[in-house]
């Protein structure tokens, strides 16, 4: 099983959307994948999986509070999201404010999370486990990214993202993560991609995992669904393929 952490320094980079689309694309390569929402402060990826109005029986918070085994938290959403191939599970975080503040106040143990990931891998025979993290640099972020095999840092071509992403990547190097890459998301049409690639390589000294354009049709969906499932031939699929090749290598 490979653990892929998806992170961004700031909110609004399209992290959760990209995470969901990448996870679905990976599953569509006939793989078994899980998506864990470790963004305990502001969980949201479950909305993309059509779980916006439902209260799951168990959440990641319950597992971290030792109220249940992690396999009880995993929801098989393969049929619900009409995945044409492969399998996908979601491990959601609690939306309840009390649950959120409790775990933020009390914290949780790294090895509990790490063991939980291993158990998920065993129980569901996972090929990939995607971690959707909370934006920014904080202890929870370090915990969930530090135990990953690949870290993908998502940023936009926005001045506010450059410094923060650079700091994130330097910290990831200090944590000795095996592999990391940058994804530039929401790129506008008139941008010189060759220059962008050079700037990223020069400033971050990290591989570019992918470049994803801004798509109005994706913005219009507003996270109501996972775009790539119904649009596998869309141009965006080429970008997602590039990212998949990066993590699969």
């Amino acid at each position, binding site marked *: *099983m*490979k653990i892929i952490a998806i992170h961004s320094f700031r909110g609004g980079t399209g992290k959760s959307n990209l995470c969901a689309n990448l996870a679905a694309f990976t599953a569509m390569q006939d793989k078994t994948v899980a998506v864990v929402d470790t963004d305990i402060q502001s969980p949201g990826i479950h909305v993309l999986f059509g779980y916006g109005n439902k209260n799951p029986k168990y959440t990641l918070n319950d597992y971290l509070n*030792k109220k249940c*085994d992690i*396999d009880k938290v995993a929801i098989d959403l393969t049929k619900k999201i009409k995945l044409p191939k492969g399998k996908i599970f979601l491990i959601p975080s609690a939306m309840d404010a009390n649950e959120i503040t409790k775990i933020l106040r009390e914290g949780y*143990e*790294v*090895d*509990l999370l*790490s*063991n939980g990931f*291993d*158990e998920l*891998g*065993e*129980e569901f*025979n996972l090929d990939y486990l995607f971690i959707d993290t909370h934006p920014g*640099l*904080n*202890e929870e972020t*370090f*915990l969930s990214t*530090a*135990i990953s*095999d690949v870290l993908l840092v998502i940023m936009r071509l926005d001045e506010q993202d*450059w*410094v923060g992403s*650079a*700091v994130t990547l*330097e*910290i990831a190097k*200090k*944590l000795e993560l*095996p592999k990391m890459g940058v994804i530039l998301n929401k790129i506008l049409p008139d941008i010189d991609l060759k220059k962008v690639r050079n700037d990223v390589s020069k*400033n971050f000294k990290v591989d570019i995992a992918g470049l994803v354009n801004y798509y109005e049709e994706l913005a219009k969906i507003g996270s109501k669904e996972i775009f790539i499932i119904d649009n596998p031939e869309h141009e965006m699929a080429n970008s997602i393929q590039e990212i998949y090749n990066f993590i699969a290598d």
Partner: protein
Amino acid sequence: MDKNKIEEKVNEIEQSEYFQNVLSQVKKIRAIKNKDLKKKSEIWRNIFAKSEQQKLGYFLDYYQFSIPNEKPDFLSNLTEIKSSELKLIENEKFHSIIEDFRTGNHSLLKFKFSNCSELVETTNLKENNKLKNKNK
């Protein structure tokens, strides 16, 4: 990009208590996983050595070996044949599977090392973790 500003921020984080805490915890986890994987690697090396691995041609899910730059060297002798996938293998079935391979009745066997460790050591990861968490 202001490189001094970046360096300053990185140093500040690196010296923080929470970063050091995470780093030490993660190092412990990695050390356990590395030790575990080396042990499994050795077990499988012996099994394959006895099973005439050259004839059988297993394809191994070598991503289980997530230690950077360190894959067991016997993997380079193994080649993928085809696509019949067996995910959980019980002890007695394993030997008959080897026999099937030898006689050409199976075209590919795909192992996951975590399951193979159960095969050999009969440890239950879930139970072990439950006990570990209980004892905390």
